[in-house]
């Protein structure tokens, strides 16, 4: 039976969702970042605890802060090791059996992947949700910058895909590689991963319908070089930009079609909901490889809020 798993948060349901979880997990950002705070503020009646998680550029370290719903600091720690201290923390704080929501809007992906895996496979809360706030625009780069070919100004630097994703470390076999790559707005990220992995087959995924009409075309334009060099224009798949479930289903379909001939690699470079879908699938399918390049995001990279969604993920707890 199909039932609705994605909801848009608005005045009519915010009070209801505020009561659906005991713990809200978010990223570390300045409070002046409108998108970062939007989801939390939308849940006006939320009375639980707020865990803010952060990691360093290469996702080795863990910092966290625990506050009550009024913003009063309960506990904070810096300089822990992401592995194994995140799992220890979730266990010590007895996340098992509680109701949890992860606001994925600003949480760093390197941490998000591990968190999703730990929650769905090891900790097993009673209910699991995720929230995401869509932007109306991403920050564009000023023209006339020497040496810069990127149109958008989203990252300070890229650490690189030669580092494993924490929690998804896996020895490479000698099989041929099929790479599923949800694409973003940066021309070099997919190019780099493609260059390093040398996949036999590339299936690029574009977010469509996109948050804002036309962004799907921007993603194709920015990744034109790698699409051309890998001659995979015919292979481009579409997937709703704000849906982790569609991403999960898409990967699942590709996986079952090709797993007998290829090792399946996923490089989630697109939207955060797409990253979430990839993380959920990779957590459930240990034979899949998750590859990521750990971009260091700009402090302010998007402008204003389009809307916020909430996803019900409890069915992935196994």
């Amino acid at each position, binding site marked *: 039976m199909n039932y609705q798993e994605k909801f848009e948060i608005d005045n009519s349901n915010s009070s209801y969702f505020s009561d659906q979880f005991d713990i809200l997990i978010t990223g570390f950002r300045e409070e002046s970042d409108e998108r970062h705070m939007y989801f939390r503020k939308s849940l006006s009646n939320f009375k639980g605890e707020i865990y803010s998680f952060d990691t360093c550029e290469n996702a080795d370290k863990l910092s966290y802060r625990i506050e009550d719903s009024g913003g009063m600091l309960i506990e904070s720690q810096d300089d822990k090791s992401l592995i*194994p201290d995140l799992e220890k923390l979730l266990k010590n704080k007895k996340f098992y059996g509680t109701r949890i929501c992860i606001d994925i809007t600003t949480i760093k992906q390197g941490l998000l992947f591990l968190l999703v895996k730990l929650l769905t496979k090891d900790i097993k809360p009673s209910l699991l949700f995720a929230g995401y706030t869509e932007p109306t625009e991403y920050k564009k780069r000023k023209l006339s910058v020497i040496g810069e070919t990127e149109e958008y100004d989203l990252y300070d630097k890229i650490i690189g895909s*030669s580092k494993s994703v*924490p929690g998804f470390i896996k020895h*490479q076999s000698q099989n041929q590689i099929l790479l599923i790559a949800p694409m973003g707005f940066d021309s*070099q990220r997919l190019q780099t991963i493609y260059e390093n992995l040398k996949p036999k087959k590339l299936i690029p995924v574009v977010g469509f319908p996109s948050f804002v009409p036309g962004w799907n075309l921007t993603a194709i334009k920015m990744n034109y070089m790698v699409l051309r060099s890998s001659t995979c224009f015919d292979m481009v798949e579409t997937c709703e930009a704000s849906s982790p479930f569609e991403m999960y289903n898409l990967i699942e379909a590709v996986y079952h079609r090709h797993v007998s001939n290829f090792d399946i690699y996923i490089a989630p470079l697109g939207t955060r909901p797409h990253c979430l879908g990839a993380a959920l699938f990779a957590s459930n399918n240990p034979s899949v490889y998750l590859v990521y390049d750990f971009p260091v995001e700009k402090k302010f990279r998007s402008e204003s809020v389009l809307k916020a969604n909430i996803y019900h993920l409890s069915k992935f707890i196994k």
Partner: protein
Amino acid sequence: MTENINPFSKYRTEYMGDSAWKYFVKDPFKQYIGEKPLIFEGSRGTGKTMFFLCNSWKQKLQAAKAEGASLKDFLNSNTHIGFYYKVDTRFVKSMDKKNIEESIWTGIFNTYFNVVIGKEIIAFLNLLLSEGVINDQLIKKTAKHICTSLDMPLVDNLEELNDRFNDVIIKIEHFSNNTEREKPIGINAGTIIQSLLLSVKDSTLFTDKTFHVFIDEFESLNYNQQVELNTLLKHSDNNIVYDFGVMTRGIQTFKTGTGQEIRPKDDFSLLSTDKYEYHESDNYNNLLVEICKKRLKDVLDKTGKPYDESFLDIQLYLKKYPKGYEENLFERSNDLEKIKQRIMVELKKSSRIYAYSIDETNLFYKELAECKPIVMRMHLALLLRKGKYTIAPKDLVAHKGNNTDRYKDWLHNMENAVVYLLCHELKIEKRYHGFKVFSALSSGVIRSFLELAEYAFDYAFNNSSNPFSFTKPRSFDIEEQTKAVYFVSRFKVAEIDSYEPSGLQLKTFTIAIGKIFSALHTDPNSTLGEVEFNHFTTKINDLRKERQDAAILLKHAVMHKILEEAESTKTKSDDIVELMDFHLNHIYCPAFRISHLRKRKLPISPIDLAKLFCGSQKELEDVVNKLSSYTEDNIPNLFSETDELSREI
């Protein structure tokens, strides 16, 4: 449609699968596989993977079988038997930190390395067993010993041992993902590899054999892991030899586990293709011709028709045409008139100084402006010279009339620079053609050459007026070759940001340095006293001392062969010390419309170089603007700011 297959569409060894050997040319480096370990150092695309993979037993056996040889024939005719391993970058990098001591990770890495090579060896031993070359008694004792050392249940056969090895790898995966789980056993480097390989040395067929372990992408290993493998290289003997493939500057340490160092000549042979002059060597050019011959033969054979031997020669397709093509384009340009007008302006200025009559000025104009475009543009550059370098129009006309040695020197020295000026001013693209030019543009990187050739074939196939076909091969015209060069050159610049690490910064630097050289090539007021700046020199030790962040990026630029190091040639200054020259990889030169030939070098101070690598946007723009207006009359900035800095410190 075999007549339209591009022979160069596969240029990565990884995409060739089991047929890499078909494209492998053995000759130039075959002496390097011997009883002394080899370190093959080169940037990406220089053939390291091809070399090691095609010297591995799997590819060599495939090649032997294709010629009808049996396994025994293969073993009898090969003294060196190699096992290829490409470092699994993500996996080995994950064996670090996570609240675990370094020494424990080192032991786990050793276990992993033993096991992963062990699996390769098992595949070989299984083949020997299945063909009756060895019997399983030879290895049963060894398998027992291995199981004991890895604290595993004993096994009965190699397949079970292989399964146990898989279990070890999974255990390491689990531990890397969660260091709270059971810790995998740590052992010494190379012990299992040695046990497995020495177990077959008792067979008479193997007594004279040397086994090789080829470790490709050695640069991906961390410091401690490199120390462990250096130890194995140091202890290589006529039974087992460890050979490394590594990117230039990718070796972090030469230390071994016992505190000794591995040294070239004493401990290993060094094969390095990243030397500036390598692209000019016969070795490289002959290698390219031979590589192309194999690929062309493959495609021509597939047509199923007889063909002329000359069609196997890449030089037939990448034909060099006589001089004069560009000059014809210049002559047809409407913008030529503007250059003539500038000559008249300069002559009028001179006539006031030298009190030339109108008739004299007109006569000089006729002599200096009404001639071939290249000569005419050279005259303009000479007329622009000032101060002690001034050349009076009358003298210039006299030099021309008498065709003096000085005039001949000017022509010889300036012709190429004038072509770049004219291309810019008349909005005409510089043309590229000929095998030697393609080879020079590749800067010694085989993959770059193959990409250039691939696109030259692509443009020829798609030529609507005269489409190329292997049923009737022909030379490519200048336009087809030129289009390929620009396409690949621009593509290569765009590709830089995909280099790890620091791709974004390296691309910004490359474009900045390209812009500087381009500005210097196309300065309309250039007097061509110093022609075609296309490389730079810097005080390398000062950079390393004062700006380690920039020095690291410079190292990465060399590692990825964006820049090529060369011993410093003499400059105008006598007291230059500790200088290093850096050439931009030639493949980028067409994109920036600069000469790829070795020409003038631009002194860049370590401070400015640091700003080009990792300065703010404003600092970057300031340096680009400053260096773009460098002239021979300027004091080289190499000795200004640096000296100020040293005083401050």
